[in-house]
């Protein structure tokens, strides 16, 4: 029983780390641009498939680095061409546009790579289990958590200490003032969007190595990311971090006792949070509500 519980808690943490990576990217874009990027799952899929296509040429490590960057470039183009026109308009429109993009990306990947699942080949040593008693923790899972931890730490450090990061945080609170202080808000938003999409691409590569790729994987991961953001509090990146880990663990623990409800438990968690603390665990009152 302890073994089983431990297994599921670890599992939940790993899945949670994954939600965190995805949700942080979404959260960045929501906070600065007020765009709910429904195509975020689509960019995750693009990242994964790019890694699949690049692995033969660059190897796993090269793909891990290059695929998210390429995804971010694609994201940048999409932002410049389409999403930028919708800033300042009713959020309904950006929601609908990215919704349509998500359809097109899913269908496009199916068209190019087919509907069957494809693997991202991971170096052999990462596939070894850690030890006989901890058989369920493969090296790859630890590696995933490590990459997520590094990415999250890097993101928070960048936002805390660099000039661009400080501008992004300031823009989240009051974009107008930031603009009057002479910051090029358009460029700031593009950069911020690309950073969010980079995280989505990175999630895609990592997910591909663990679960394999299929065109619908992004849509399935989108909902937990939304819930992570709502539970943590819209507008708060640390909140998103906590929210993601929390729903991951909650789903993992539920899987021990009541497997068929493991999908539903995060919704219950969200309802409880909204009932007791509507702004979310770490959300600020009045911001984005």
């Amino acid at each position, binding site marked *: 029983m302890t073994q089983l519980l431990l297994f599921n808690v670890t599992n939940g943490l790993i899945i949670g780390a994954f939600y965190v990576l995805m949700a942080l990217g979404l959260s960045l874009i*929501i906070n600065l641009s*007020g765009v*709910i990027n*429904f195509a975020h799952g689509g960019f995750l899929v693009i990242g994964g498939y790019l890694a699949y296509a690049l692995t033969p040429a660059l190897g796993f490590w090269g793909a891990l680095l290059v695929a998210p960057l390429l995804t971010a470039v694609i994201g940048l183009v999409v932002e410049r061409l*389409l999403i930028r*026109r*919708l800033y300042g*308009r*009713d*959020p*309904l*429109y*950006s*929601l*609908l*546009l990215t*919704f*349509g*993009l*998500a*359809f*097109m990306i*899913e*269908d*496009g990947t199916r*068209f190019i790579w087919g509907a069957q699942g494809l693997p991202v080949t991971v170096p052999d040593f990462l596939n070894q289990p850690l030890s006989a008693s901890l058989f369920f923790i493969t090296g790859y899972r630890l590696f995933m958590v490590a990459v997520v931890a590094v990415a999250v730490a890097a993101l928070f450090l960048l936002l805390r200490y660099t000039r661009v990061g400080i501008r992004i945080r300031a823009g989240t609170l009051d974009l107008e003032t930031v603009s009057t202080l002479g910051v090029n808000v358009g460029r700031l938003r593009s950069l911020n969007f690309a950073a969010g999409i980079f995280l989505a691409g990175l999630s895609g590569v990592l997910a591909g190595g663990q679960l394999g790729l299929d065109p619908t994987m992004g849509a399935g991961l989108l*909902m937990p990311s*939304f*819930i992570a*953001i*709502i539970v943590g509090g*819209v507008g708060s990146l640390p909140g998103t971090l906590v929210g993601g880990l929390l729903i991951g663990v909650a789903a993992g623990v539920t899987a021990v006792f009541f497997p*068929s409800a493991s*999908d*539903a438990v995060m*919704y219950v968690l*969200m*309802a409880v949070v*909204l*009932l007791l603390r*509507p702004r979310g665990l770490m959300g600020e009152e009045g911001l*984005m*509500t």
Partner: protein
Amino acid sequence: MNAGGRTNRLVLAAIWVVLLAAPFWLNLVGGYTALGSRVLVLGLAAMSLNFLLGFTGVLSFGHAAWFGLGAYGAGLALKFVALSTPLAMLLGTLTGGIAGALLGALIVHRRGIYFAMVTIAFGQVFYYIAYRWNSLTGGDDGLRGFSRQPLAFGPMRVDILNNSTLFYYFVLVCFAVAVGIMALLLRSPFGRTMLAIRENERRARFLGIPIELHIWIAFALSCVFISFSGTLYALLNNFADPNNLYYSLSGDLVIMAVMGGMRVFWGPLLGAAVFVVLQDYVSSLTTNWMSFIGLLFVLVVLFFPRGLLGMLRQRRVA
């Protein structure tokens, strides 16, 4: 003003003539009666959503949940409770309406993006329930084993089961009743208050209007209407499946409303007609219809954000 009133009455008459005559002209232009019924049902669903979206200005992106609850409610009632079409519609409408009212109470204090995200996420709860609860809902295969029942008015029986034209008229009557109530509500002081909230929430609040209460009532009413249309959808197909609850249907309903014109009462019906016909046509041509629907979303947002009727109206004013 007088001339405008007359035009409106003419347009209204034209709409009803077209709808009443649909079984006769649909076949001539290559359609079929069930397609007409589908347009009416989804049109009613989009209009119900627009009651909230276009006239109260509240962005709900999870309305498929209430639509699907209506469909499952009606299906389950026919299968397990009694073989009665009206009873199934009543129970289905209550299922979605009550669930929507309860959830609405939880979220009316949220606005904008936050509201949209919460409605999307909560909508998925019912999808997972329908997907997982195999013994009751049939899971991924959908709910089968029920069919709409002929109507009985005393000794007279109307066989809406086997005669698709009669069923079309049955749907049209239901549609007319629902849409009529909606129009009356929008003309009432309550409806005017909804518009006031849409136009300027802060000012409405300063006038002493209880905003949250009004938004909650509008949300609940919208859920009741859309569940009602969901029950019709189950009767149309004699089938309900988890996709009736899935968030992509919510997106489809929103795009119908936007494409037709959110600010115009009849807009969503036109949007639904265009969407349903296009989907029917494109999916018969290519397996990549998802890309076309996605492209439609993008094009509508970029080039027709006011919708077809919204643009017409603007031109008339200008």
